[in-house]
Structure formats: C-alpha cells, structure tokens
C-alpha cells in the first residue's frame, strides 16, 4: 500500500492555552513496498505523524491518502477495514496490552479480523516465535507480569499477527536487549522483502536506521527537514547535530580516519561495512 501525506498539519488542544502545533504542512509520499525510517528529536512530531496514518488522530488540516483513498473522507466502516491493513506498534507497549494472558492478547487483532480459530492459533504461535519468545513458556502469563522488554515483544507480536500491509513501528527496539533488537529487526527486514509490505520505522538508533531503511524522513519541530536516502542524509552531520540528532558511530569514525586515509569512504553506517572499508584502505 502507498501512503500519501498532503499538507498535513496537526494542532493539539486548539484554542486552549496549551495549543501546540505539532505538525506543520507535512508533504511526503511513501511508495508501496518501501522501507522508510523516521528520525527526529523527542517532541519533533514523529508519533503525531504516524498516528494519522491509521486514523488514530485526525488532521487539523490536510489529508492522508492510502492507496489513493482519503482515509478521513472514508466512512466509518471503511476506516475500520483499513485499520486492519495498517499495523501500528505504539511507542509504549504496555498501553497496547490489556488481555489476561499473552496468548489472548496476541490473538486480539486477528480475532477482530474475523479469522478462523485455526488460523488465529497458527498466527499467534508464529508471531510469538518471530519476536523471540518461547510460546509454551509465555502463553498463559499475564502481560503485566512480564519484564519491560518482554512486554514490548508481545506488543509487536500482536501487530505482526494481523499481517498488515503497512507496518508502522514507533521506536520498537527501545528497551530490547541487544539480541532481541537484532532478531526483531531481522524479522522486520525479512517480512518486508518476502511479503513486500510497506514498513515505517521510527527510531532513535541511527545505527538501526542506517542498516535497515531505503529512505529517511528527518523531522524537526513538526516540519520535514530531509526525506532522502541514508547516504545523502547522513552526510548532513552538522544539520543533524543542530537538531539533536547524530550519525552512526562508525560514520564518525570514518570521518576521523580521513585525516590519515584521505581515500576512505564516509558513507559507512554499519560495523560490517566499516570493517570492509578499513581493511580495504589499510591493505590497499
């Protein structure tokens, strides 16, 4: 599914003393099957933006078109049907969990989609496995008796179980241990390449963004600063730093190494790529 955001503005508590313009005239097109990263300082409007994509927030002005259809023009029934295709993993997972057991919680979405018991069961098992949890060990536990990282994994499983066409993840790896982070990102990447779904990933980890996405949307105070490839965005180091962001650690390293090795490439975002490039310049 493609997502087109047109002249989108959002003002919280309009007319009250707490009025706040969280989004200002945002225009972007996310193509069907693409993988987009969103970065921006806290409060820059990332969560506000993505909550418009499945109709959780309504624009103050502007529109959101999904596959060419204005979702805020749609009838209520259509909007509900649409939400089934757009999976949103919230920033705070415990807000998303509410059933008595992990199994019921993950089954909630697919149940609402009207799937058969059998299909639901299978999806629940599969998605709990995808997020690196042991189904038999965790299925009967209360979601509220889990550790922070376990809760987050369950919340992600609940959305994956709906097999959405557009998967939106709001800082999904926050609170995950290193292995969990790697496993879940790998699962998302393989979902994207195998099922050709559209993925929108909000993250504060420049490493994860640099490793995963095709295009980066950079937000600052409710406005779009860049919407471009990692190669282009991560060369704008001073602009990024001036708005509270950064580039991956290894990118900083490459810049430092340039003094000694002028031919070294700077468009390096992962340890893997850094290793190759360093070996290349050192060994000639």
């Amino acid at each position, binding site marked *: 599914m493609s997502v087109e955001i047109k002249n989108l503005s959002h003002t919280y508590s309009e007319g009250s003393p707490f009025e706040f313009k969280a989004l200002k005239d945002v225009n972007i097109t996310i193509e069907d099957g693409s993988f987009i990263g969103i*970065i921006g300082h*806290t*409060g820059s409007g990332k969560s506000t933006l993505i909550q418009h994509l499945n109709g959780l927030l309504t624009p103050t002005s502007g529109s959101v078109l999904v596959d060419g259809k204005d979702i805020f023009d749609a009838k209520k029934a259509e909007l509900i049907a649409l939400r089934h295709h757009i999976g949103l993993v919230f920033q705070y997972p415990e807000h998303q969990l509410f059933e008595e057991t992990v199994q019921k919680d993950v089954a909630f979405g697919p149940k609402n989609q009207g799937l058969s018991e059998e299909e639901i069961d299978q999806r629940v098992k599969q998605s709990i496995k995808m997020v690196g949890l042991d189904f038999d060990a965790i299925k009967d536990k209360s979601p509220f008796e889990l550790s922070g*990282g376990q809760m987050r994994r369950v919340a992600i499983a609940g959305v994956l179980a709906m097999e959405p066409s557009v998967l939106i993840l709001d*800082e999904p790896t926050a609170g995950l241990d*290193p*292995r969990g982070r790697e496993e879940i990102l790998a699962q998302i990447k393989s979902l994207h390449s195998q099922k050709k779904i559209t993925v929108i990933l909000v993250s504060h980890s420049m490493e994860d963004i640099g490793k995963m996405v095709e295009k980066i949307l950079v937000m600052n105070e409710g406005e779009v600063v860049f919407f471009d490839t990692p190669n282009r965005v991560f060369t704008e180091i001073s602009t990024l730093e001036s708005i509270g962001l950064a580039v991956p650690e*290894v990118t900083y390293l490459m810049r*430092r190494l340039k003094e000694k090795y002028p031919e070294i490439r700077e468009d390096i975002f992962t340890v893997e790529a850094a290793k190759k490039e360093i*070996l290349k310049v050192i060994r000639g």
Partner: protein
Amino acid sequence: MHIEKGEFVGIIGHNGSGKSTLSKLLNAIIFPTQGDVMVSGLNTKDHENLWTIRQTAGMVFQNPDNQLVATIVEEDVAFGPENLGVPPQEIRERVDRALAVVEMQAYAHQKPHQLSGGQKQRIAIAGILAMEPECIIFDEPTAMLDPSGRREVMETIRRLNRDKDMTVIHITHFMEEIVAADRIIVLDKGKVVMEGEPRMIFRQVKRLKEIGLDVPQMTELAYELRSEGLKIDDDVLSIEEMVNALCQ
C-alpha cells in the same frame, strides 16, 4: 554484591534477566524472598526504614509514564520533596535547579501527559533529583531518548556521580553508556555471571554475545578487525581509541 558510596555501577543483562527486579529490591519496593538488602546499613525488610531508604536511594524507572503523578510539570517535580516535608521556599529552588539540569525549564507549566516520551523521561529524572538522594538507580532512563537527549542525560548522570559523589546504578541496553563506569555487573537468568571493570568485561565479546548481549560498537569493530589479522588491542572502547589504534 556490594556497591560502594560514590561508585558508578553499570548493570546489563537480557530481557527478563532480573535487572528491574534487582533495582526494586534496592529501593524497598519489593522484598527478598531469601537474603537481605542493606542500604546505608539499613535492612530493607525493617518497615521503619522504608522512607529513609526510598529517600536515600531514588529510582528512575524504565517508563516515565508510571512515575509522573501531577497535572503540571513543576508540581510533578515538587511531589517528592513535598512528601519529604521540605520547606516551600527550598522546594521552589530544588524544582528550578532540577528542571535546569534536565533542560526542561521551558516546560515547567506544561501538562506532563502532553509531553513526548523523551521529554517525560527528563521530567522523571528531575523529580528524583529534587529529592536530593545519595544514590540513584536508573532503570533504562535513556531507552526513549533521541541522541542529544541521551547524551545530555548521560552527562547529567556522570556529573551527579563525579561532582556530587552520588552513587549511581545504571541499568541499560546501550553498552556505550557504561564504558566509563567504575564497574559492570552482568546478569543472566537471575544470576550475576560477570563482574569487573568495563575493559575487562567488554573484552569478552564471545561470552557476552552468547548470553544475548553486545559490546560497544568500537570494541566490536576492533574484534572483527583482529579476526581478520589486523594488529589491534582487544580492549578498544571508544572512537578516540580506535583512531589511535589505526593511525599510529
């Protein structure tokens, strides 16, 4: 385990390894099924010690939403000292100071629930700072912050430790944040499995990966380069050290 006054201890471990459980034990929120926890010589099991312990060892949780209580930011920060019976004039000063430390003065009159995740996290830290505890337990305080917010909070934590001699227990999944700790404790399935200086811990790349953890990026890169035959020390922790290693 024993933690000295003024020490900066990093705690790492996989999801569910017991980090938060440990921190709640230190703060007398939960109590040992077996054994004892002593904070400044006081046993957490003795009920009359409860408030002294909670004031001595402040705690910043994983999710700030669960600790913001008031409807206005500055009231929230004032909540702790108010409960401790601090005089109003001093509360005012403490609140201003704490908000300045986390750079949230401009939001003093906002409603906490209207703040974004990272902003809430900074308010939660200010709320603890205003109680002026001797020790702060940070349970993943930077998990939701952007790069500059994280840097700012880490600098704040280091400053509190260095200048105010505050004991810091820092739980994190970001290995870079604890390269300058005095000591790192590694938990695995509820047990302490490693303990020592950062350099000594992070040198054990394989072992850490086996238990689902990681090493700082520069340590990992050094490890990878070594395995390709490059002569590099196995205890590189920072960009600076890596530059030195590659440019001698």
